[in-house]
């Protein structure tokens, strides 16, 4: 039952990063590459029409995590207090940027909200990557100092950074050189994903240029990926154990690598959707590989005194998990039905759509 909810939450999270991921990526591309007002408008719209129904996946993931693994939810949300609240603020700036840009016609107003949308999207992509880096690296559970736990074994508090900026420090912060690298991988991946979304959903004048951009970003991504793999084991020595014990888990990294290799052929692709599918594979593969390397651990402990948080020591009762299964299945079916209805009615290029006004 724990495994079922773990998988469900992983799926919901992956869907969130696929869907809202393209919004973040669209924001990054918008920030750096959209120059003409016509492009800016349609690119903002390609995120603006969908961000709120995409963001509900985050709310759903949060709710399910709260219900199924309350101890994990409590520990992680209070431990990552500052970065989480900053993420909340960025989410607000992203949303109001998208919603308010077209409310007044003068350029300065639009520029302000474009910047709000773009910068907060960039920072959100970075922060989500950094968050993943933190989960992979682990934290000082129990706040151990000189061999003594300062808090209960499953609580911790992370400063934004530790003066050494090293993941190998005994009290690492949220930001260190390892998590920054994972953050950059996230930014590049989502920028590629966003660019694919823009190509798929719009006729913007920069579409041809975006294919070159994707190609170049993909080179950067490949380099970052290889580099991160080299240091990954230094940061988390057990990270490859799961893959050698259960070889079928290799599937997840293969998904990632397929996306990565496939995107090198972006310039030759005839159908716009192919690029988007490949960057989706990148996201799915990246998240699932990271989670698979940890399973069943949810948050490693970097000290030897306190046990890591796992799906077993943080879950609620068996009854709670199984009763939630009943409504969970109905809920999932409904979610996919809504998604299909929405995609069917709002498919196609944004520029060609008739809003009915």
């Amino acid at each position, binding site marked *: 039952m724990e495994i079922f909810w773990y998988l469900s939450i992983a799926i919901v999270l992956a869907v969130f990063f696929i869907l809202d991921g393209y919004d973040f990526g669209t924001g990054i591309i918008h920030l750096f590459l959209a120059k003409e007002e016509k492009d800016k408008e349609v690119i903002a719209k390609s995120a603006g029409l969908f961000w*709120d129904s995409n963001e509900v996946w985050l*709310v759903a993931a*949060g709710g399910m995590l709260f219900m199924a693994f309350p101890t994990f939810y*409590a520990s992680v*949300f209070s431990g990552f207090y500052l970065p989480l609240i900053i993420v909340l603020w960025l989410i607000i700036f992203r949303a109001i940027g998208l919603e308010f840009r077209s409310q007044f016609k003068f350029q300065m107003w639009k520029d302000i909200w474009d910047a709000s949308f773009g910068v907060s999207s960039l920072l959100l992509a970075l922060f989500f990557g950094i968050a993943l880096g933190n989960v992979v690296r682990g934290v000082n559970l129990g706040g151990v100092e000189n061999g003594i736990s300062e808090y209960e074994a499953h609580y911790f508090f992370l400063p934004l950074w530790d003066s050494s900026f090293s993941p190998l420090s005994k009290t690492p912060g949220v930001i260190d050189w390892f998590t920054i690298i994972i953050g950059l991988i996230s930014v590049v991946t989502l920028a590629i994903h966003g660019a694919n979304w823009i190509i798929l959903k719009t006729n913007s004048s920069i579409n041809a240029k975006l294919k070159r951009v994707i190609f170049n970003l993909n080179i950067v991504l490949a380099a970052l990926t290889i580099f991160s793999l080299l240091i990954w084991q230094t940061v988390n020595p057990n990270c490859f154990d799961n893959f050698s014990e259960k070889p079928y888990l290799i599937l997840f990294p293969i998904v990632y690598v397929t996306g990565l290799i496939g995107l090198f052929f972006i310039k030759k692709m005839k159908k716009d959707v192919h690029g988007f599918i490949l960057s989706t594979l990148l996201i799915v593969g990246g998240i699932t590989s990271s989670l698979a390397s940890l399973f069943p651990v949810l948050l490693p402990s970097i000290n030897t005194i306190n046990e890591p948080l796992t799906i077993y020591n943080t879950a609620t009762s068996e009854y709670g998990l199984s009763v*939630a299964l009943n409504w969970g299945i109905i809920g999932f079916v409904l979610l996919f039905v809504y998604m299909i209805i929405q995609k069917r009615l709002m498919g196609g290029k944004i520029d060609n759509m008739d809003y*009915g006004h």
Partner: protein
Amino acid sequence: MEDMLFYDRLQFAFTITFHYIFPQLTMGLSLLIVYFKGKYLLNKIEKYNDAAKFFMKIFAVNFTMGVVTGIPMEFQFGTNWAKYSELTGGIIGQTLAMEGMFSFFLESSFLALFIFGEKLMGQKLHFLTGFLVFLGSWASGWFILSTNAWMQHPVGYEILDNGKYVLENFSALFSNPWLLPAFLHNQLASVVTSSFVVASIGAFYILRNKQIEYGKLFLKTGVVFGLVSSLLVAFPTGDWNAKNVAKYQPASFAAMEGIFETEEAGAEIVLIGQPNMVEKKLDNKIAVPNILSFLTYQEWDRQIPGMDKFKKEELPDNIPALYYSYHIMVGLGTIFIGVMALALFFLWRKKLYTLKPLLWTIMFLVPFPYIANLTGWYTAELGRQPYLVYGLLRTSEGISPTVSSGNTLFTLLGFVALYMLLGLLFLVLVGKTINEGPKHKTH
């Protein structure tokens, strides 16, 4: 420790207060939108359709605000109330996760379709999307209220040896005797807010001599919905809730009614008075004898325990705030009934549209249903103190053990600044939409 608790409570109170400005409008307004759109399907008069689309624009701005201020609420359970989340997440996580899954998705998916899809879908499907938005927003209220009902009157749980609360009976969460009255009261109160908003915009158009046709429609609809909902908020749902408080939280009941000393037989109802916490009495009191006993138990001489019957640790920690919140809510509710009844009378006599003093009153009354809704919630939440889960888990036991008060103060100040900006933008946008009016076509 004291500081931490104070800042955590202040931050939650501030962010939830600001958040609840928006859903209280969208829940009620979605009902009125369904009414306008349904009426259009029946009578094919274009202005009803325009009204539905106009208010959906206002709905959309409020919805965006509700979403971006709502996510911090979900997060705060973990960030600031980690111990509470850890102990009770197995129970309240159920209803909160269901809210995300069943209502939030419904609302956000179909809102976009309602706004952009009228031509695409045809009128009947357009009505259906509007109805689904309404269903989603009311379902959201249902799940939030069921979460709150569990905190007010915990049911269906089991406490493990390690202090954790786990679910023992899922359906008990929804058959909780606290839930239905609280839900109906809350939803009807949100209809009051939106009726006043609709009526107020109508009055504004008439007074400005602009978009008169819509002004009359809005005013008429707002007044009818406003009177019906104001009456239902007071009776039976308000009455029903008060009886629940008297039954399940007698200490809170004594505090909110301002009963310092138990009377031998029959408690008086306090209309006005100021709690004097030093001398433990009400100053400048105006009260009617025996009415409270009658309203609560339909017995004139029934004794109602006052605050002297309870230990200090069982009484709410801020009695004046609770007392004032409750009395402001009740007082405003009474005024709403009066004004709306008057307006309906003049509507019937066909004088309302030219009766300027009443139009001005209706226009400027619009902040007060918001205040009444919020003070109603303050009554519920202050009344639950000093507990998070009534009678079981104290508020001081629920905060995050690792988050220092300095961090919470920092984020609180950040929220205050950011929400001021949000509030300003919100007013500009809603003002702009109202100023353009339903006739205005864009895009």
